[in-house]
């Protein structure tokens, strides 16, 4: 029998301050902003007349990805004005997710509730604000709470459901989906890393070869987390676009 010490959940999620009120999550968030700004600043400085390369290529690819893969699919041409917001949202979430597999960091900033919660709350304010701006306060809430085409008798049932769904549940589902996925990935990586270490250092020599199995799983999950990091950023962004599009153009 071997016993490995699994650290308390707070030990793998809560980080000590490296400066007053400035921990690893804050470092990742600040670095995400710096890296994103640096890439786009380099792209903005590059000669636009030449074929894009390096940072410019990366920036243009991400702009086109957001425009063609997110906005045109959910909001249409009218939604192109939202490109900077959705692009920033996507890049920020992705750059906060990716440190989960980067040595030294090994922690996605979105595996803590603060950033997903703040972003989801901001998205809630943005899509409700956009809806009110385009349809007026009454018009927007009428379109949300009393969807057209529903028999009037059913409004008793539909209206509370729509209120809970569109006004209350959406920000929670946005935040929890991102947070839970990144937290689960982080815990899985920690678990397999600890298991590999314990088996490789087992006193019983016969257990040592079994350490290869969790190690392979760890490698596989690390690769998988690259995909998850991108996918969760994409899902958060496309749902934001869907919510904004629905608020601005309820007929769609």
């Amino acid at each position: 029998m071997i016993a490995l010490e699994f650290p308390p959940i707070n030990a793998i999620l809560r980080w000590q301050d490296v400066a007053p009120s400035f921990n690893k999550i804050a470092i990742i968030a600040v670095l995400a902003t710096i890296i994103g700004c640096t890439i786009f600043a380099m792209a903005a400085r590059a000669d636009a007349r030449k074929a894009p390369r390096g940072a410019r290529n990366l920036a243009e690819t991400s702009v086109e990805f957001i425009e063609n893969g997110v906005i045109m699919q959910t909001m249409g041409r009218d939604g192109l004005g939202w490109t900077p917001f959705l692009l920033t949202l996507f890049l920020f979430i992705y750059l906060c997710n990716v440190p989960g597999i980067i040595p030294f960091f090994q922690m996605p900033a979105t595996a803590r509730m603060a950033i997903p919660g703040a972003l989801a709350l901001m998205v809630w304010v943005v899509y409700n604000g956009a809806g009110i701006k385009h349809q007026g306060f009454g018009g927007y809430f009428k379109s949300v709470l009393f969807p057209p085409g529903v028999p009037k008798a059913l409004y008793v049932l539909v209206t509370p459901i729509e209120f809970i769904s569109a006004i209350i549940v959406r920000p929670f589902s946005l935040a929890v989906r991102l947070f839970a996925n990144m937290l689960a990935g982080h815990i899985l990586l920690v678990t397999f890393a600890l298991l590999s270490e314990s088996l490789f250092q087992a006193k019983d020599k016969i257990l040592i070869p079994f350490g290869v199995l969790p190690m392979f799983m760890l490698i596989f999950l690390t690769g998988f987390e690259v995909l998850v990091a991108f996918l969760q950023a994409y899902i958060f962004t496309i749902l934001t676009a869907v919510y904004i599009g629905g608020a601005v153009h309820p007929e769609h």
Partner: protein
Amino acid sequence: MATAVVTLSGGSVVSVRLASEKGVAAAPRAEEGAEPKDMGPNPISPELKELAWGFGSFLVFLVIMRLFLVPKVRKGMAERYDGIRADLEGADAAKADARAEVAKYEAALVEVRAEVAKRVDAARVTLDSERGEAIAAANRRIAAKKAEAEAAAVAERAAARDQISAAVTSVTATATSIAVGKQADNSVVTQAVAQAMQSTGAR
């Protein structure tokens, strides 16, 4: 603190389980009557400093991207796309011009070919008429030469006949004078020779 308990049987792993401090009731520490440790704050609850730094960073990122970086990158993209579009349109126009030039060239080629065919036909007609005229002139010259030659031959023949006639007449007169012993009448001999030659010639 959670503990992973791996159970072995005969050297192989039978089961692995994670157990909390409370769960490891049979563990020695529990037997010692240790109180469960404080698990700390709720791991899900957000920390204010993380909220502030995370949201603040995002806002700074958004403002910089919205006001400066994305418009600049987008402007560059639009300029390049416009340039590419203009180049494509220019290429299309050049292609259309080239096609028009080719059509014009082909029309001119057809015209030139028709003109050439017309001129060749005219030349052939001219050549044929000139050849006919030349052949007719040559035939005329040949006929004239032939007539001249025939006339010369007739004259030569007449002259030869006269010479023969004179010679035969002279010989006949001499032979007659030798045969009869007197000078023969020259006109009679001449007439007789002429008659004899005429009848010989007729034969």
